[in-house]
């Protein structure tokens, strides 16, 4: 069998450029996998749709917990955050998956800095989370949210910060956990409280102290709040739902800084832990 010969390849020495290429390809691979996993995509559209249209419509018709405001419009930013939260965590779980199925080794022996793999993973999960958030975002007009270019831009920006932060937390958990079952269990333990305490489902006012304090610790609170503020910006009572520090409504940029900061710290820890992996 005659085989065309090519000259032996010369792998260039490692540089920031090779690290950047590694980030890009790790990110690209996660997207290919996300795109191919159609059942997961469908499932992850169904869940927010159920919350928004079934829960929002049914609950809103009977009890009017948000006064004159359509409950679905109130839930809309929360459900957007929820969809992002779930998708990001599952995407981060691919790290555990890769380790169980061996692919991790392929990445661990490559001549690149380990952090580039972690960053690639975080960006991959964040992108998937973004796509998910945008799918929910697109449901807005169906429940009477009027889009303006500014509103869409603000929500997109907030989704980017949220996706990145959540995936980073997920990556940190994934790096520390050895088996996929354990990861899934831990994700339930982390995701559900984050979701319920974030104010995605109810206004963060007039809460008992213990619950109020718990909501303040949840980083997701600071992502749901500015998104809701943007959506309700033309409703006068908007601020009456929001989270406050002793009565002080927290400005959007502070909230987003908290979310982004949490993400960066998580990512830094994840990169550090990942670097030690044998």
């Amino acid at each position, binding site marked *: *069998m005659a*085989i*065309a*010969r*090519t000259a*032996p*390849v*010369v*792998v*260039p*020495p*490692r540089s920031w*450029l*090779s690290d950047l*290429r*590694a980030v*890009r*390809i*790790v990110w690209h*691979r996660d997207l*290919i*996998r996300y795109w*191919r*996993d159609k059942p997961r995509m469908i499932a992850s559209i169904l869940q927010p749709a159920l919350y928004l249209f079934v829960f929002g419509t049914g609950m809103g018709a009977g009890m009017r917990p948000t006064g004159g405001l359509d409950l679905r419009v109130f839930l809309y930013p929360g459900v957007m955050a929820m969809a992002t939260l779930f998708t990001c965590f599952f995407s981060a779980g691919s790290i555990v998956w*890769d380790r169980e*199925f*061996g*692919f*991790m*080794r*392929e*990445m*661990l*022996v*490559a*001549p*690149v800095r380990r952090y580039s793999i972690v960053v690639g993973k975080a960006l991959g999960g964040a992108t998937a989370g973004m796509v998910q958030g945008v799918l929910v975002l697109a449901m807005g007009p169906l429940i009477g949210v009027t889009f303006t270019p500014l509103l869409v831009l603000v929500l997109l920006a907030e989704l980017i910060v949220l996706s990145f932060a959540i995936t980073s937390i997920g990556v940190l958990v994934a790096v520390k956990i050895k088996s996929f079952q354990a990861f899934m269990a831990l994700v339930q333990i982390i995701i559900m409280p984050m979701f319920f305490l974030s104010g995605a489902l109810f206004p963060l006012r007039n809460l008992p102290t213990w619950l109020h304090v718990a909501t303040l610790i949840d980083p997701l609170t600071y992502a749901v709040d500015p998104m809701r503020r943007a959506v309700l910006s033309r409703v006068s009572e908007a601020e009456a739902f929001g989270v406050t520090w002793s009565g002080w409504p927290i400005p959007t940029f502070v909230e987003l800084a908290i979310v982004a900061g949490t993400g960066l710290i998580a990512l830094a820890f994840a990169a550090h832990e990942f670097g030690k992996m*044998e």
Partner: protein
Amino acid sequence: MTLAVHVRGLHKRYGDIEAVRGIDLDVNAGEIFGFLGPNGAGKSTTIKILCTLARPTAGDAKVAGHDVLRERDEVRRHIGLVFQESTLDDYLTAEQNLRFHAELYGMPSKIVAARLEQVMEMVGLWERRTSRVQTFSGGMKRRLEIARGLMHSPRVLFLDEPTVGLDPQTRASIWRYIRELKQREMITIFLTTHYMDEAEYCERIAIIDRGTIVALDTPENLKAKVGKDRVQIGTADDDAAIAALKAKFDIESANREGLVTFAVENGEQFVPRLFADLGVPIRTVHVARPSLDDVFLAYTGSTIRDAEANALEKAGGMARMARVARR
């Protein structure tokens, strides 16, 4: 010329277990070098250290002239790896797996397509490049892993049990690639195996047992050190033949299963003399070289199968019982 692998005083300890206890090793560039030993002897641990996946507890190791601790990136640039377990992404196509590798290794983009075709042609998977790896058989996956390990033209290719669990036909073709590789790109092949017949393909073999190297030489020399070939002849008169062997060659022989059987050095060279001088008509001749099984037995005191069985027993906490039983 730089040594492909240079190891001195290598130790690796996991908690109480000393997996590697003082290994010295030199592998020449372009050599096919085999690491032979039972499961749990320290083969995989040594490979992991050489591939920068584990840190040695003590000792020095250089691969392609670079220190595995201080120059990790340099080592990684120059090695290719094929592990026992699959490290492919089943959800991606064969080509996507290889392209991922090319990007991760920073291969110049211009040459990726040509190189991809070359390595996939070599392992006979070019036609299947757009299939997802999910649909591949075990043998195809292993071939794809070898192709991937070669994408970036490594100086040293590490193959950890490259043919374990494969059918004989696939094993044969994998060995064909290995030899082709060595010729074409002067790649050093460092492989581990616990198949005796595969070790024969290597130019040199290190026999490793309980974390140390107990013998290191060419298969021929190892076998020669173990000793004699076994010769079996069918004759017209076995008793006369046995008497003649004793009288003319001073060789003790015995009748086993209807054949006169004896041991002699360089059996193939002895046979012509036998025909000329025995004086008893010979109908059949069979000369068997000592096998690596004999070699392993001679150096470790147990056959490779027994050694593995013992390793398993130890894992089960039955070490003491097994030792008592052997005495």
